[in-house]
């Protein structure tokens, strides 16, 4: 058995021939194992889905209860047998419910990590290093320029700006699943206890996080109650990034536009988007985390999925680790 016969790229996603299942399939398939709830990894319409309880819940919230034929919850650390292939889910530290999937067959273990990060995050379980023969890694931030700062520092800059500009609303763009709730939690951990105003697109998922015991404090809809623009002066408003370029944003007084994303590391990116206060907060690994993780798994071979593959493959070569890009299609390498 060679590793490439155990898992191989296919148009529908990463496929396991002996187990006859896909990981994060991008088209409807018979059996899909899903690492986490972001829409480019978790799609609806599969016949059977195996994922963590939380990922299944999130998919049901986004697509409706009937998003798949049948569903099965995978408990972290417990091994399931699929057609003789052993499959184990381990936490990935990316968003609530996110997991890496270890696939083991005839003495070969491959870990498909999905998306992952190593920085502590109070809204999800921390990444667990799983020793393996082949490690499949993402490379969203796979360039040596991406070094994420501690997230508390970024939140401290946000809170300082609120003190400096109390007459303005601070609009924080953050992806609806994971990033938004992490930002809320970080704001709470920094001692801010005023209500946080949220865009409607965040409500269901934030409620779900709260139901899972992650305290996000008082969240209120960012709608106009009394009609005055002064309503949101000094407030924090969180919404999906796209909403702030839209007419929706006009209700706020002279807003400071903020964006919580790993892309904010690059000044030109912030400038292009008209972001006034970039917050470098990412749910993906930065360069140092990617390289440290590859070493920690002890993998003799690394397969790189989506992102900036060439730099990470180059680094592996320099380190004497066999590496190749998988060229999977269908995953957004811009989301964060």
């Amino acid at each position, binding site marked *: 058995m060679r590793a490439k016969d155990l898992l191989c790229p296919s148009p529908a996603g990463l496929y396991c021939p002996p187990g006859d299942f896909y990981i994060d399939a991008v088209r409807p398939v018979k059996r899909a194992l899903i690492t986490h709830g972001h829409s480019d990894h978790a799609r609806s319409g599969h016949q059977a889905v195996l994922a963590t309880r939380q990922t299944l819940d999130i998919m049901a919230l986004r697509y409706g209860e009937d998003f798949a034929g049948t569903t099965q919850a995978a408990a972290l650390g417990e091994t399931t047998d699929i057609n003789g292939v052993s499959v184990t889910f381990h936490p990935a530290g990316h968003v609530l419910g996110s997991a890496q999937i270890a696939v083991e067959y005839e003495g070969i273990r491959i870990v498909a990590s999905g998306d992952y990060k190593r920085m502590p995050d109070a809204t999800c379980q921390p990444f667990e290093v799983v020793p393996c023969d082949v490690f499949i890694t993402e490379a969203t931030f796979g360039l040596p320029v991406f070094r994420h700062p501690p997230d508390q520092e970024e939140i401290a800059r946000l809170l300082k700006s609120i003190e400096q500009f109390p007459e303005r609303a601070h609009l924080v763009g953050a992806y609806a699943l994971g990033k938004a709730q992490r930002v809320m939690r970080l704001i709470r951990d920094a001692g801010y206890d005023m209500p946080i105003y949220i865009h409607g697109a965040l409500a269901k998922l934030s409620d779900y996080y709260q139901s899972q015991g992650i305290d996000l404090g008082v969240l209120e809809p960012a709608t106009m109650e009394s009609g005055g623009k002064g309503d949101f002066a000094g407030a924090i408003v969180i919404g999906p990034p796209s909403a702030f370029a839209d007419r929706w944003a*006009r209700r706020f007084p002279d807003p400071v536009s903020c964006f919580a994303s790993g892309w904010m590391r690059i000044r030109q990116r912030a400038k292009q988007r008209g972001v*006034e206060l970039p917050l470098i907060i990412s749910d993906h690994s930065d360069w140092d985390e990617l390289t440290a993780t590859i070493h920690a798994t002890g993998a003799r071979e690394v397969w790189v999925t989506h992102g900036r593959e060439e730099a990470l493959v*180059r680094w592996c070569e320099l380190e004497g680790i066999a590496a190749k890009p998988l060229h999977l299609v269908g995953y957004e390498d811009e989301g964060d």
Partner: protein
Amino acid sequence: MNRFAELLDRLVLTPSRNGKLKLLSDYFCTVEDPDRGLGLAAITGDLNIAAVKPAMLRALVAERMDPVLFGYSYDYVGDLAETVSLVWPTPQDSIPNREPTLAEVVEKLQSASRSDGPKVLARLLDNSGIAARFAIIKLVTGGLRIGVSARLAKQALADFGKADVAEIEELWHGLAPPYSDLFAWLEGKTPKPENAAKALFRPVMLAHPVEDSDLAKLDPADYAAEWKWDGIRVQVVSEGGVKRLYSRTSDNVAGAFPDLADAVDFDATLDGELLVGSPSATGTFSDLQQRLNRKSVSPKIRERYPAFVRCYDLLQHDGEDLRGLPFRERRTRLEAFAEKLEPTRFDLSPLVAFTAWPELEALRSAPPHPIIEGVMLKRWDSAYVAGRPKGPWFKWKRDPHTVDAVLMYAQRGHGKRSSFYSDYTFGVWSGPEGGEELVPVGKAYFGFTDEELKQIDKYVRDNTIERFGPVRSVRADRKNGLVLEIAFEGLNRSTRHKSGVAMRFPRISRLRWDKPAAEADRIETLQALLD
């Protein structure tokens, strides 16, 4: 160092003037001496640090990381200083307890010899975090490019110390980094610093535009009229052998005009207009532009575009401060003084005789020289005071040119306007009949009301044909398109624009919802204005 680095990062992304002022005055308030003064000097361009060439920076990185990985990184980021600040590897063995302060960085960089400069820089980068590294590299490669003028920094000082910005400008050229005496005074701890320095800037007197109702209330006999020349306002100061040419905002521009500075052989402060050509053959504003924003000027350019000053006022002479005297008396002194000046480099701005407003109006509409942009009115009894007081001086500009153009592209604004398409590129028709095409001739982002902004924004959203990031391309052909009446002050030839023309001070004067796009102006209309 981190506080300074954070300030730079915020300034470069903050579009509003008030936002920048707040960030700067907060910095002066929370950072102690000498760091805050050095930060100020870095922003105003008054900090002297030996420059480091980009090639040297690359060489330093090449010693520390794989060139292929650096290549991928630089390609992605596109800015050398930023790339190096991000990829610089932190040495594992020597993690410092704390990062260096701005004062320590400046001290090390200033005392480094040419040969050990690179080593000193590398050590500083080793001991700093990403943000600080970026700021250090910006300091040594020259040019912060953060969109803050020296004038804005002085305004922030004024806000911080609740002082008048004119006072700060008057003091400025007698002070040196780190400006501890200035901060002590602004904080009310010591009296205003004594100015022993020579040839200081005197804050400039400015004029209000004439409003419709103004003239009816004014007696023509109280005012002198003078042509308003379209050059740059300049203050020539010479005191005890020190010669300076100050711009209106107190920047010393003498370096760019050595020919003019050499002709200064007096002890006085003159207010005037810097022009090119000669007093008998005044050049255009585009000729003048050949000499602006240059650090040094080649002899060829100097010969082709000689500079001279047309004198408006005399503020000081042989140690006597004349600013408190009435204009009538200063003018008499100026006329006598100007006679003795080098005639190819200085002349007197002539007064325009008139007895009634309609007479002056006629003169204003048909000035005798193309580089006249209107008339100035100065009360005969007015003292020379700093700033823009209402009443003693007025400017009465020639009516702007207008052209009907078609909206072609719209870009999202910043800050308050970030959800609006508020920056408009417009074009006029060119090409033969039946094959007309729009060519862009300018960009404007003001001149309309908030209500009109909403209407244009809706029009842009409803008529978008393509999107490029924050820019939308708007439907504009012979049958469809929004016609904008554009007002502008003048037109220059431009090799940078496809249309060959560049507008000065364009703004939107009217929305012509009623006008069919095909009836907008043609490029020939603009070309006719060039000559």
